[in-house]
């Protein structure tokens, strides 16, 4: 028989799926259920019985989520914007990463050293490989190991936005610096080094604050177990 936390988690999952409660709301509602259970078990009921009554008192999940939808009108779009922004950030990092990998491959693999066309072809290959990998990941069964890993990673990122932002920024700067050095050294192209700061700076200055602000709206440390946009 699943324990209290597991049963509560599956109920929370049903409520959260409607997408009309913020992390704060979920935490408040869960706290209420736990307090009811505690009160009822003190009165003599078993934990199972107490949970059934507590959830029954909260009422039909549809009614609950409908009531919260009235007080959280913009939440659905805030959630979507969060994921779009996160996707943009991830893609920016991947873009820089592919550049770096392509230069490295061109350097090591091409007999005549890196050339513009050689690097471009390798980049195309990397992008294709990435696109295929992303499609395959999207089609994976939800119980698959990779899917679970992705879920854990996204959960961790939602709970540690500052760490995630720092890592993303560090990766972008790191890759970009490498690429600029590679370009400057291999192609005697100094201009690209000047673009480094502007690209990274723009992305960092615009995207990261938006991401962090939306995180503040959607997720709360008290609701650490819940996933955003589940």
């Amino acid at each position: 028989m699943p324990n209290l936390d597991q049963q509560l988690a599956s109920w929370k999952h049903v409520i959260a799926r409607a997408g009309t409660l913020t992390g704060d709301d979920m935490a408040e509602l869960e706290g209420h259920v736990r307090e009811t259970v505690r009160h009822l078990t003190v009165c003599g009921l078993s934990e199972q019985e107490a949970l059934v009554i507590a959830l029954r008192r909260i009422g039909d999940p549809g009614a609950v989520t409908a009531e919260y939808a009235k007080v959280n009108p913009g939440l659905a779009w805030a959630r979507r914007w969060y994921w779009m922004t996160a996707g943009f950030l991830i893609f920016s990092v991947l873009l820089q990463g592919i550049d770096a990998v392509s230069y490295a491959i061109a350097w090591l693999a091409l007999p005549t050293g890196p050339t513009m066309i050689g690097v471009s072809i390798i980049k195309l290959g990397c992008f294709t490989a990435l696109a295929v990998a992303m499609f395959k990941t999207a089609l994976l069964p939800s119980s698959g190991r990779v899917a679970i890993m992705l879920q854990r990673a996204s959960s961790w990122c939602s709970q540690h936005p500052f760490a995630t932002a720092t890592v993303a920024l560090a990766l972008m700067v790191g890759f970009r610096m490498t690429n600029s050095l590679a370009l400057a050294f291999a192609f005697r192209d100094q201009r690209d080094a000047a673009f480094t700061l502007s690209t990274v700076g723009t992305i960092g200055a615009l995207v990261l604050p938006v991401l962090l602000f939306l995180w503040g709206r959607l997720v709360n440390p008290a609701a650490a177990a819940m996933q955003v946009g589940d």
Partner: protein
Amino acid sequence: MNTAMIGKDLVAASATPLILSVLLDGENYGYEIIRRVKNVSGHQLDWSESMLYPALRRLEDRGLLKSRWVASESGPNRKYYTITRQGRSALAAERDAWMTIHTTLQALWEPKPCPT
């Protein structure tokens, strides 16, 4: 008489003054607020939780309440609500409104002396 017999609109309309009045005694959290209302009403007002928390949020959005999270030693964290000054004046206005309705109804329901 239980809440089921009190109309939905009346329950909803009375939520604001009831919540504000409970919080006049000091800051409190959702579970206790429901319990307090239930006790004081002699178990005739049995609110549903799905009604209370959005109502608390609406009052907070209107500036009549403010809230803070408090870590609890022996259980889940609790969100405590406090009435603001704006809340107190809103409650005074609600009180006037309800008293007006109450006295009018009372006057209408007074048993009239038999005409002789």
